């Protein structure tokens, strides 16, 4: 494989990792998880780009990216003995549809509703895909059992 083929993915990985790092600092992530968080965020976006280049729609690619972030979050949370949220929240933020949301807002505020609706749907699809990616892993890996000892009798 030629270097020029891999280069965009490496660039995407590094930039997304830096973006993740900023949010890690903002959310006061435990120190020992910093690097793992950055790798998670970087891989999420690099895989999304890979999927998009392979022909997936941006929403479909986002689903795959979020799915991977969620799986990595599950594994890393066990390895680092840290809440899974630490990895999933910071890992998924680089994929947030910022540009579509912005152009939705701009078009609608200019009265350009038809283009605004197109962008809004794009935003919702990507956002929904990210949510579904996280949920898929969540519902497969864990059923919360919190009411085992609940107070049921008066």
């Amino acid at each position, binding site marked *: 494989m030629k270097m020029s083929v891999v280069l965009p993915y490496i660039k995407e990985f590094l930039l997304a990792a830096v973006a993740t790092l900023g*949010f890690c600092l903002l*959310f006061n992530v435990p120190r020992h998880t910093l690097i793992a968080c950055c790798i998670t965020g970087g891989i999420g976006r690099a895989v999304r780009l890979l999927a998009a280049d392979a022909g997936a729609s941006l929403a479909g690619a986002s689903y795959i990216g979020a799915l991977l972030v969620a799986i990595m979050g599950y594994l890393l949370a066990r390895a680092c003995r840290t*809440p899974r949220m630490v990895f999933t929240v910071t890992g998924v933020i680089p994929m947030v549809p910022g540009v579509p949301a912005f152009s939705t*807002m701009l078009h609608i505020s200019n009265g350009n509703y038809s283009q605004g609706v197109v962008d809004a749907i794009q935003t919702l699809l990507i956002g929904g895909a990210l949510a579904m990616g996280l949920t898929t892993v969540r519902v497969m890996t864990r059923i919360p059992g919190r009411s085992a000892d609940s*107070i049921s009798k008066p």
Partner: protein
Amino acid sequence: MTDSDSLSLDAKLNVLIRVGVMMLENGAATYRVEETISRLGRAIGLTAVESFATPTGLILEGLSAEGRLTRVRRVTNMGVNMDRLALIGNLSRDAAAGLLTQQQIVARLEEIEQHEGVYSNWLIVLGVSLACGAFALLFGGGWLEFAATIVGAALAMLIRIALRPARLMPLMTTATAAFAATAASSIACRSLVCNQPDIAAVAAVLQLVPGVPLVTSVIDLATGDIISGISRGAYAILIAFGIGLGMLLFLVWGL
């Protein structure tokens, strides 16, 4: 465990409600809060605990040989500190494994409550600015947009830190920061003569994205905590509108 070591029912519930409120303040998922309370409650010697956690309040009831008691406490949501969540996770794991006496659990909890942020404010400003700069490059901007984004993002982050003690409504803080980020990055873009000021503005504002409520809302809905899930989602949408409002204030005032 000796009798002298044992806390009263009131003190036990006090520990549990402090743990729960701290978790909710820092954006933990509802099922995790309720699960931690019930695990810790058993470790601390309660016969049974039932809790109902929402993003704005926590109700819990405990049963022991002494009788039964209910506690209610409001939750005001300010800032996310995931390190605290991790420390509480360790505490509840150790307590459930029977490694800690009741006094030690209380001592560890007090330690965690004293625990402030892991990173200094300057490091956060630096990291967030670089992160937003990285977004500008990801969105197809060049190095000029990167520079303009960093200016806007750093200013917005400084404003957020400065407004923290004022305890304003989150919507207000968000809109102010979004306005500042858009204004600063657009003005920087003009002086640097870069041709995509929109990219710089979007990237600078992305630091305000309500990532924690968005993700916990999804988790809550997935685990069946519908009330928490919907209210967190609504909160995230509100913040998103705050971002839009702040940006539009500048973009509509015109340049």
